[in-house]
């Protein structure tokens, strides 16, 4: 047991941190998110050239064979700058489903482009009535001749507007909330019957409502076995929770440290705000919650890397704590920044927004506490 990074991991962490430092000032980020497509194509190319898009894929698929630890290091550094390039959507989510369940021929066709950054993926798993339940799927896939016909609407699909392909969950059999009977398909974003209603989310990212009307897909676009997609769905969701939690931990570090810095500069009543004990104690609480989140992130990530039987439960614990502590830290960062915290001029508000969205993605704090206690 140890918490040291290997030299390769250290190198990765250093280079991602350098990328964020060089490219992600608040002004630079706002310039990116203010215009379509909501990310910087040159950054995406750089990220591809640095090899980060290849991280989690097997060497046989042209990847680096990295695991949860490598993704954690990358996402934590991304979180410090609130990086908006669609790494989560294309690599962790879409790519995660592909590498777990797509037939070799399909991976051979799609993954090289995903890894070199010329193709992007999105992952449509949520539906309006489902709230946070992955198994609640009413989108249907009806077998028809050599393929399937899909009908339904997938909600808040991140990066669907720029994705070339979207992985969607659809029901091939069973009742609305059955785990059995869910199948995953790779559809072309521009296929006939795919309608995208694109919009920004509060954190500056992009999402879409993806409406599927008699969308025809071939059997060769099936990811995993017919009716057995739930296992892949859940594994991808777990990866997403680990990645989002790492991003959140990076963002929390900025939030509490910015608050400590700001309150030491800002003078009121003839003193720097940081000298007031009531504020000091609040900042200590923010720091403690950050450290606890980091500890649980390590635990969940290392248990996942090990394939431990406890990993699923620890992931629920992690998402609960990240949601609860992340919003606690963000609310207090804004409070301690006073009126300035409410403006778009300082970083904290932007981190607050991202923290809100992270809590709502893949199940919020309450949802995961219930799952944890189940």
């Amino acid at each position, binding site marked *: *047991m*140890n*918490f*040291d*990074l*290997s030299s390769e*991991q250290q190198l990765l962490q250093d280079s991602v941190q350098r990328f964020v430092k060089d490219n992600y000032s608040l002004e630079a980020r706002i310039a990116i998110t203010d215009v379509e497509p909501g990310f910087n194509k040159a950054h995406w190319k750089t990220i591809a050239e640095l090899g980060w898009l290849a991280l989690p894929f097997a060497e046989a698929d042209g990847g680096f064979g990295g695991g949860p*630890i490598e993704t954690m290091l990358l996402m934590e550094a991304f979180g410090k700058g609130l990086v908006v390039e669609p790494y989560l959507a294309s690599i962790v989510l879409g790519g995660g489903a592909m590498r777990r369940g797509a037939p070799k021929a399909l991976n051979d066709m799609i993954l090289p482009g995903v890894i070199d950054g010329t193709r992007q993926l999105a992952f449509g798993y949520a539906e309006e009535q489902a709230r946070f339940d992955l198994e609640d799927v009413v989108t249907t896939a009806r077998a028809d001749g050599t393929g399937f016909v899909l009908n339904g609407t997938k909600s808040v699909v991140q990066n669907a507007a720029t994705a070339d392909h979207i992985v969607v969950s659809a029901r091939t059999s069973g009742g609305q909330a059955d785990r059995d009977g869910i199948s995953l398909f790779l559809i072309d974003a521009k296929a006939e019957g795919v309608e995208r209603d694109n919009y920004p989310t509060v954190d500056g990212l992009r999402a879409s409502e993806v409406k599927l009307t008699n969308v025809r897909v071939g059997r060769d676009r099936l990811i995993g076995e017919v009716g057995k997609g739930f296992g892949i769905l859940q594994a991808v969701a777990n990866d997403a929770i680990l990645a989002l939690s790492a991003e959140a931990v990076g963002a929390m570090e900025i939030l509490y440290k910015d608050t*400590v810095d700001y*309150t*030491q500069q800002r003078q009121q009543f003839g*003193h*720097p705000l*940081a*000298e*007031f*004990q009531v504020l*000091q*104690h609040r*900042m*200590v*609480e923010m*720091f*403690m919650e950050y*450290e*606890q*989140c*980091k*500890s*649980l992130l*390590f*635990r969940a*990530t*290392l*248990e996942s*890397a*090990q394939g*431990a039987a406890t990993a699923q439960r*620890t992931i629920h*614990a992690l998402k*609960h*704590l990240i949601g609860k502590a992340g919003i606690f830290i963000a609310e207090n960062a804004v409070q301690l920044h006073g009126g300035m915290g409410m403006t778009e001029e300082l970083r904290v508000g932007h981190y607050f927004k991202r923290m809100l969205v992270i809590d709502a993605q893949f199940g919020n704090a309450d949802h995961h*506490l*219930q799952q*944890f*206690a189940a």
Partner: protein
Amino acid sequence: MDIDLSADDLAFRTDVREFLTRNAYKPGTDYMAWRSEWFTKAAAKGGWDVPKWPKAFGGPGWTPTQHYIWEQETATAALPFDMPFGVGMLAPILMGYGSKEQQERFMPDIRARRINWCQGYSEPGAGSDLASLKTKAELSADGKTYTVNGTKIWTTAAHMADWIFCLTRTSDTGKRQEGITFLLFPMKQPGIEVKPIITLGGSHTVNMVHITNVKVPVENRIGEEGQGWTYAKGLLQHERTGLAGISRSLVALEKLKEQAGSIKRGNGSLMDDPAFRAKVAALEVDLMALEFTELRSLAAASAGGALGPESSIMKLKGTEIQQRIAKLTVEAGGIYSAGWGHPVGPKFARNGMAGYLSSRAYTIYGGASEVQKDVIAKNVLGIKSGKK
């Protein structure tokens, strides 16, 4: 980064389990004889009687992983009763600041648990603000003997102690932290009066200690005169880490879940009550995180020799968790928790409120939570202390 146990670690775990099983107490036998034999046998394993001591002083020199394994394995085993004052608190000070003569004189008895120590820090006028302590030690003209006068309070186990390690004031001029001197003296002597203090839970663990004209030879002084604060401060960090009580909380939480699961509610148990269940779950999440905070802290300590910033949060979070468990135990016991020393109701509920009341001391002793936060703000966040 990994949490795999190496073959050596697994062998160590087997060794620990075997040792604990082989040397478990057999009910009905002489407890004190077993206790002293247990420590002898643990010593023969290569310092298992003093797991946290460094190798140079006879400790086992374990890796962080081995410490973690020891904690896990001993959490559920009934170890012999032990007080932290000698082995855990005075010994590190002797190792760091005591003379060779003092180490040779005191450490064997500490290690063998032959001498019981107590800690004379707090005073009626010096609680969280420890540096304001007033117990006076005056050096005789020939420079050979101190005369000590004053009152110590909240002195745990003073009524069972043979010796006390005591912070005294030798100077009133200059910075108040610089006039404090660290002295050792016997408790069983004229001039020392121990008065019990009964706390809210009904138990007698702490005392008031009056010290009147007690003579202490200068060779019982640790380090230099006026430097006692520095010596004591270094130790507090370790004491506070120890007070987190993570292993104990893990066991207590399991017990709580088992008990709540045995309480019938409708078709299920109290654990099916959503409100109760959510509180238990949130508590468990915090404890799971704190377990890894401790591991990170151990790893940092073994790499750099010093405790990492993570360690500063352990006393705060750990004691809060202990109190939450005590409170949920009261909730689980319902009205039977109100019983005061009389065996009625479900067994676990007995004295529930008394236990919870006792737990309220956890966030007061060893540096109140508010003082801990001041310390973290200053030492970890780097904020200079100022206006309150």
